């Protein structure tokens, strides 16, 4: 099982997160998102943040959760290399996570591609033989 994968789309890219549980799949999808923007190996864990998101269903919870990373990136110039989901409530659709990273530095971090937004386009959440996968298309 790969933690995350990137799949084809004409204009943009799908990010897939896999895990033995749904929360692990969410977590790995966020890790994939971070990797798409910057090489994770270059990012030190200097700053810790707690993030929270709330949705109306699982799909919107995923979109809201991933959007939090874009907000932190744009407003505080942060990139992340460690993501741990600390609360995952799939009845009330709430998630909390502790994330670690540092301020983006073009001299230090090999840059990938900026992600503008998380979309609902062909968004998938599924389970097959005990492996959960979430797939989301990001706007670039």
């Amino acid at each position: 099982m790969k933690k995350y994968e990137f799949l084809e789309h004409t204009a943009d890219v799908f990010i897939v997160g896999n895990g033995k549980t749904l929360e692990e799949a969410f977590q790995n999808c966020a890790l994939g998102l971070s990797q798409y923007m910057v090489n994770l190996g270059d990012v030190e864990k200097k700053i810790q943040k707690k993030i929270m998101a709330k949705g109306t269903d699982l799909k919107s919870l995923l979109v809201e959760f991933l959007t939090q990373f874009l907000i932190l990136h744009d407003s505080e110039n942060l990139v992340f290399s460690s993501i741990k989901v600390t609360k995952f409530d799939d009845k009330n659709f709430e998630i909390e996570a502790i994330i670690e990273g540092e301020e983006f530095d073009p001299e230090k971090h090999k840059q990938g591609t900026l992600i503008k937004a998380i979309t609902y386009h062909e968004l998938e959440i599924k389970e097959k033989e005990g492996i959960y996968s979430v797939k989301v298309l990001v706007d670039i």
Partner: protein
Amino acid sequence: MEIKLKKISDIEWEIPKGTIQGMKVPGIVFASKILLEKMKLDKTLQQTANVATLPGIYKHAICLPDGHEGYGFPIGGVAALDFKEGGISPGGIGYDINCGVRLLRTSLTDKEIHEKLKELVMAIFRNVPSGLGSKGKVRLRSRAELDEVLKIGARWAVEKGYGWKKDLKHLESEGELKIAEPRYVSDTAIKRGLPQLGSLGAGNHFLEIQRVGEIFDEKTAKVFGIEKKDQITIMIHCGSRGLGHQVCTDYLREMEKTFPDILKKLPDRELIYAPAGSELADRYLKAMSCAANYAWANRQMIVHQIRESFEKVFNRSAEDMGMDIIYDVAHNIAKIETHKINGKDVKVYMHRKGATRAFGPGHPEIPSDYQKVGQPVLLPGSMGTASFVLVGSKTAMEKTFGSTAHGAGRLMSRHSALKQFRGEEIKKQLEEEKKMFIRSASWKGIAEEAPGAYKDVEEVARVSHKAGIGNLVVRLRPVGVVKG
């Protein structure tokens, strides 16, 4: 699902009403055989048919020659929804609200800048923040300060000394949608927008130094200030940064929550709209207008930074180098417009997503000096290929609500581009073969935006011209590129 098309001409195809359930009007696709084959590879045609199911839609859902799959609407999609019976859909505008293009002219020639090209590109790269984490040089500290930008757009930048008063006359809507109301923009969107004003961003955004290649229509070119071959122009392509993306995200979510019954009936979740007359339609229109104003202010500040770069490298004033704005177009936007439909003036929510306004001669929204010829349309190519200046027409007013294509349109996914191209090699190839100079914040960015990843912009421009919805004026060739 395969969509059967009815041929109208070699470059116009109809998606008949009834192709999918709930279509209120037919779809119409402007494409040559080659472009159409590419549209069939993804969901472009299906999405065009989906748009035709929206309430209050007039005449047809339109797909332009550069159409490709988007979210909700296809990119290259146009729809006019009635102001009273229709609605407004964020999926018909896009996440990057007022992503757009601006073109500056100079009185310099290719020969005159040749020796200093590298220095010039590097100066612009240093002056205009670009790439991941790019922050503007102006630091706005509070919401109140940013609210001013959201209210008056490009005028804010000019009043602060970024540019000339006459610049405003040559911007679509003069760079200011007056209905904007900042109080409808969330704190989160403000937070994303505060550090980024005056920055290019990344992805497909770029700045390009170009030379005039061919002039197709000398009379019109002259009106736009393009006098001769090899004259240098500068093109800017960027949008409303994180602020616009968040406005779209916020309102998509709110519309889904507020109108679950509408959501259930839609063929695609991302076509969600706020019905005309609802309080949410009003708020979204005003918030979206704020993001549009942010983008115009952003491009205005970048113009200023480019003028400063030229001044420094050539030790001459920008005025002396004739660095006036030719025009600025939005290609992701909705506006309230009035169009003549079946002989009557009708007020509509005009959606243009990956589409450029192309108003014909005599339209009151066109600057006075362009009244006789029509509105300039700026069609950027992909990195390393040509770009075009077209001109809006009466035919566009009749066929496409005054709209035409917005660029080349992607052909290959970013992922395949990364597998197929290497940034270092693409740069070397373009620099050696085309004598260009490229500076990018990321190698990955260059590979993803490789010319081979896009449809042929020449074909898009040709179809636009042949359909008469945006006529050829000038072809521009790239000389130097700064990429985010």
